[in-house]
């Protein structure tokens, strides 16, 4: 076991003081030390995208970053998407369009979509499909995920 490092992670605009080994992945620390278990681990080698979070606004795989790298950066997870009881348009749209079944990949897809839409609200269909092909869903066959994200774009534009 190597020495622990004390640092502060800023997650969903809240500071978490944590004590980590350098080898602890950001995903593990978010889940186990900060108690934010909405960030899921599906493969731990960067393929499935279930652990996708926003790091300084960009969607990244939290299993491929060490927590020790992330002090001073702005981290957003699925728990920070809704405001109180009000669902983010993407969350409501996933529900309304049956874009989830088991729900395991859902937080990753939500953060992936949130990240890209905040950067590029007028993203083309082709680019959107390219981005959404980053994550794996084993239940839905993706059709409803694409539909949900498209519908949310319209809703986000209205807000």
């Amino acid at each position: 076991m190597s020495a622990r490092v004390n640092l502060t992670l800023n997650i969903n605009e809240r500071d978490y003081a944590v004590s980590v080994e350098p080898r602890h992945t950001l995903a593990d620390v978010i889940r186990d030390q900060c108690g934010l278990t909405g960030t899921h681990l599906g493969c731990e080698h960067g393929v499935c995208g279930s652990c996708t979070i926003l790091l300084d606004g960009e969607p990244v795989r939290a299993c491929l970053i060490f927590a020790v790298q992330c002090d001073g950066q702005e981290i957003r997870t699925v728990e920070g998407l809704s405001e109180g009881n009000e669902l983010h348009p993407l969350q409501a749209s996933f529900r309304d369009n049956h874009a989830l079944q088991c729900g395991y990949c859902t937080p990753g897809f939500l953060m992936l979509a949130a990240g890209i839409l905040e950067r590029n609200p007028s993203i083309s269909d082709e680019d959107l499909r390219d981005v959404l092909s980053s994550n794996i869903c084993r239940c839905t066959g993706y059709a409803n995920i694409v539909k949900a994200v498209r519908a949310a774009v319209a809703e986000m534009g209205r807000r």
Partner: protein
Amino acid sequence: MPEGKVLGKPVTRLEDQPLVTGRGRYVGDINFPHQLHMRIARSVHAHAEIRSIDTSRARALPGVFAVWTSDDIPEVGPVDFRADRASEVLKPYRQPVLARGRVRYVGDPVVAIFAEDAYVAEDAAELVDIDYSPLRIIVSADEDPGEFEPGRTTEAAFLTHTFGDVDGAFAKAHKVIELDLHTGRHSGVPLETRGAIGRYDAATDILELHGAAKVLHRNRDTLVNMLGCNPDQLHVHESHVGGGFGIRGELYPEDVLVLVAAKRLGRPVKWIEDRYEHLMCANQGREQHHLARVAVDKDGRILAMEDKIFHDQGGYVRTHGYNVANRTMCMLTGLYDVPAFRAVTHYRLTNKTPCATYRAPGRFESTFVRERLVDAVAAELGLDPVEIRRRNLIRPEQMPYKLEFDEANVENLEFDSGDYPLLFKKALDMFGWNTLQEELKRRRAAGEMIGAGMGLFLEEGGRGPSDGARIAVDSRGGVEVVTGGASLGQGFETAMAQICAEALGVDYRKIRVIHGQTDRIPYGIGAHATRATVLTGGAVHVTALAVRAKALDMASELLQLPVDSLEIVDGTVRQRSNPRGPTITLGDIAKRLAPGSKVLGGRQPGLWAEEFFNPKDTVFPYGVHLAVVKVDPGTGGVTVERFMVAYDVGRAVNPAMVEGQLVGGCLQGLGGALYEEFIYDDQGQPLAATLADYLLPTLGEAPDIEVLITEDAPSPLNPLGIKSAGEGGINGVGAAIAGAIGDAIGRPGAIRRMPVTPQRLRDILRADGR
């Protein structure tokens, strides 16, 4: 069927609120104070004798609490079959929870480590030294059987299914067509890996298993036998489950280990499978070699089918015994009227990951074989593939249609209802099959390698024997439906709530559905083999009707109105002819039915009921898959341009959820047809043990899948006519894709092996000089 108020509507799911906000509770999200983390040191050899195990370095690592080999748990037997799969001849082939003396696949558990954190546990596993002496490695069921143990070969069983005069039919056939076919090894690979937490409460003498799924009561019963405790001492709990597909929720060695360890070590024990382990250890499936032949008359009518199957079971026989091989054989004739049939299976163990059921077990395989045969007949006789199928389909007037096998130990089948030609026609019409042929001709003429194919299939579901439900209305009108069902993400809660809401007359959103908790209800069928909606749904329906009857009986007395004049709308009883007249809510009725109530009379206290539903037989949904693919001749790459799933589900409880099942299942099928394969080298080393090597389809590979859900043949075997929807999306995909690729390359019988990888397709084209 009369149109329901909520039954049959594509309403949003009750499950979704916590799942979209990151507040689900999957097994990895559950933690108990003072828990230990278990890590398994696994075999790196496919087949070897264990000469010695040295765990001293692992034990010495700070943070390690205990290290076990099989010698530490001599009292724990191998993982048992489910009660209904017991087979004496297969028992010696069961898997010990930690290898005893021999390892039989790469990934076989050998040593269990219990440590303070998951990182340390993994460090310790690396420090375990195991000395192996290699044994002969068998990587294919085609190889001559070897020795499983002294006196026992790796051909664990030889199975036969027969009916009719097969030899006579082949003797008088106009043509006999033979094919040599392979279905590749693939599996469900849910996004959430497996996980299990054992926890023992000495104060109450109750052992808990968290992270269970699919068949909780049955697993409890198996575990109770293995551990020697009583059912009331073992509580099995389901949390959120990140996908099942047949493979999750079966009993595995790790489930047993966490329970034994929790009790013995006196601390909760948590095990979360990693993806590498998952791809080496969780159940795989599908790998079969078929030598199949069919006898036809000059019009292409099938006279007989025969199949010799080599079934690759992997290193051990797991919970399902030879069920998959049996399903393959008994569903092989599918929805065709075949007078004579013989199938034999060499059920063989190999030194690869053990196999069991994966979505549409035995059916994906047999549909591929059957439809390949039919396509080959069409090509041989110069018949249209549509026409030859029409000629052979079982006709509606033959329903119910019986398949009676000669063998006493083989279960006979009776197809409950169906109009197969009608669905076939509807599917072809919606797909625009005839105009499509013109378009394909044009595009081929312009140089494109493009073609269409089809897979027609029969599914089965709703197999009994029985399931129950308990429904209670509380004093504020809240409704709790307690079931022994299970939710793997398919929308079980919503479906049950819709069925209950329809029968009882309440808003489905006010219903709380309990599932997967063995301490809440003594029996439960779980969610497997497309049973949940039929069995548990049937139970919820009859139970809700019983609650309704009790509520109306009480309301009738309180409102002084005849029972048959009353209705329940949104949880309020009122007179049908006078909706603005006197009313009473279900909550108030529940209050009046409380124990000691003055108006209780001779009634049982409480507004609740408990009923069972016992269907008399299995239901058989059926479907048609149609595909258009384009082949890139230069790379062997295949693009699926169009795919359609047409499926008669008897009755759709929630069409949006049915569609989700079909589309999702279909993409899994496309994975198995084109991308996914667990390959091994000749030393039995797995070469697809990461998600960079085992290729799950992404959106980039997903076509827009068209869906036609029909309700033309409700099942007569249950009150709602439900036939279920879980496995129809995947069943015919391999068949349709193989046919379409064959059509595209102008070689109708060329595709003999799933998955059709670009390299395999290039090999076929290159052999043709293309």
